[in-house]
């Protein structure tokens, strides 16, 4: 995202190259946690929770829903942080 010349001054962890590698690593870990289900089958209690990749999909979708829900509620609930100050 930043110019490479800026990048050299930065901490190694926040350089663009490192962040790209971290994303690749994260994607690989995500893939492994789902694929490992082939070896370790889930015994669901309700049926649906034993489906392939159910926890992954459920975790992702509920979080997206919560962020969107919070965003919508925020339209009505948010006030400047000096609201109660006077």
């Amino acid at each position, binding site marked *: 995202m930043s110019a490479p010349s800026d990048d050299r001054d*930065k*901490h190694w*962890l*926040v350089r663009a190259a490192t962040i790209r590698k971290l994303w690749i690593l*994260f994607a690989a*870990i*995500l893939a492994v*946690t*789902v694929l*490992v*289900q082939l070896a*370790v*089958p*889930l*015994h669901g*209690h*309700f049926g649906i*929770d034993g489906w392939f*990749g*159910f*926890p*992954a*999909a*459920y*975790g*992702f979708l*509920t*979080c*997206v829903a*919560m*962020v*969107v*829900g*919070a*965003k919508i*509620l*925020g339209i*009505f*609930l*948010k*006030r*400047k*942080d000096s*609201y*109660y100050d006077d």
Partner: protein
Amino acid sequence: MIDALPPGLILILGALLIPATSGLVRQGLVLALPLLTLWAIWLVPDGVQATLPFFGYMLEPVEGSIVGRLFATVFTVMTLIGGLYAMNQARAVELAGAFGYAGSAVGVTFAGDLITMFVFWEIMAIGSTVVIWAAGTASAYAASMRYALVHIFGGVVLMVGVVGHIAETGSIDFVAMQADSLARWLILIGFLVNAGAPPFSAWLPDAYPEASPSGTVFLSAYTTKTAVFTLLVGFPGEQILVWVGLYMALYGIIYALLENDMRRILAYSIVNQVGFMVCGIGIGTEMALNGAASHAFAHIIYKALLLMSAGSVLMMTGKRKCTELGGLFQSMPVTAFCGIIGALAISSFPFTSGFVSKSMINQSAADLHLTFVWMMLTAASAGVFLHAGIKFPWFVFFQKDSGMRPPDPPLNMKLAMYVFAGLCILLGVWTDPLYAILPYPVDYVPYTGDHLVSQFQLLLFAGLAFFVMLPMMKRTETISLDLDWFYRRFFKAIGTEFTVRAGDHRQELEQAALARLGRFVEGLYRHHGPQGILARTWPTGSTVLWVAILLGVYVVIYYI
């Protein structure tokens, strides 16, 4: 007969000594008092150890129980490590308040009767108010007064309930009951006010973040978890608690997602975590109650750790808003590392304390085939990682670089964080010590392939959601309205409006009354004053003339 003193008294009485000491003596006192209390706690055997006659009732100020000992232990450990964190930085009045507060929380856990419980419950309210107030800022003072009002209200509700319950049953024993009469409903509501349940959740994120860096650490531990303890003893299996708990768990997530103040994010997540415990108490099976109790134990430690990390950032930078922070991992590695451990533990990441405690609550919902409850708890578990597990460390230690390079805090604060970070991991990988002191025998194995895979999937994909949705999570300098708006704005506005209108009306009435009085005085003056017709001297001649005229008229009329 008093043959055993409540262990909590060591902390309460010791708290009074703290302001009188300084330097090494105070440091020694801060560390010795909790250790002494811990020793006293484990000396109390099960059952009633002391009685005290009181207006015809027999109080039981010291009753040992498994669940009481569990909570008392973690309260005292918290006091010890919190004391270590605070001892060089906090004001004496804050330390004294915190120790009195902790001692009364320990007092509640040993209360065998409702009256003793209530007395310690109220001392807690005083101690905690002092802790908030000790921050010394105007906003802390205002918050401490709002906090005190909510807790006095909760205390009154609880007291009315206790009195009603005693009048109905004739018994003061603090044992399991059901919300089947008005009095017991009031007791339940009194407990729930302190747990941060709706509609009284807002006091917690309002007051706690206004305390000093160490004050918030103390506050996070006792009030809500004492409420969890009393619910666990008083209302296990009370069904409404399932729904109250679920509401709290989701409320905490939504508000934390909207929040900008790092310590308020963590305060909302206390409500969220206590929601899991309250839900577990509502489910009420042995595993669910074990889950609630062990989660309270684990929660006190990782939440204190998170707030120690946030408190260190606040102390070293003077800033508390996510919009002003970022990039601090570079110069505060210890604070960042310990904060991340706490964040993983609150998210129930495998190999941390949260994983082995909270799972029991979710498992108990699954065992009873409470599909909806399980789905909500699982969604909330994913949401914890979202709002506390990633959001807190990300916005404080990473995200954009704020340019600030403050060092890590002083040694005692770092040590406290290391100890609690160590405990978060230790309890997660070595479950036997915690499982051994739970209220019921534990028939649960957290580390199965099944559980690990599903938990990793759930949390890591929640993490993916965070980074995918990051543009939508950009922090703004805002707060979010809560139900406290009613007492901070609505009723205040109504009160102001009433005052203004009543003032106007009073003025009108006053002016009307003054005018009437003026007219009366004027009238009096006109008739009786120096020029008044009634005050004039009447010449005798004119009277004679009038009499003559009247007589003349009379004579004329007579002849006609």
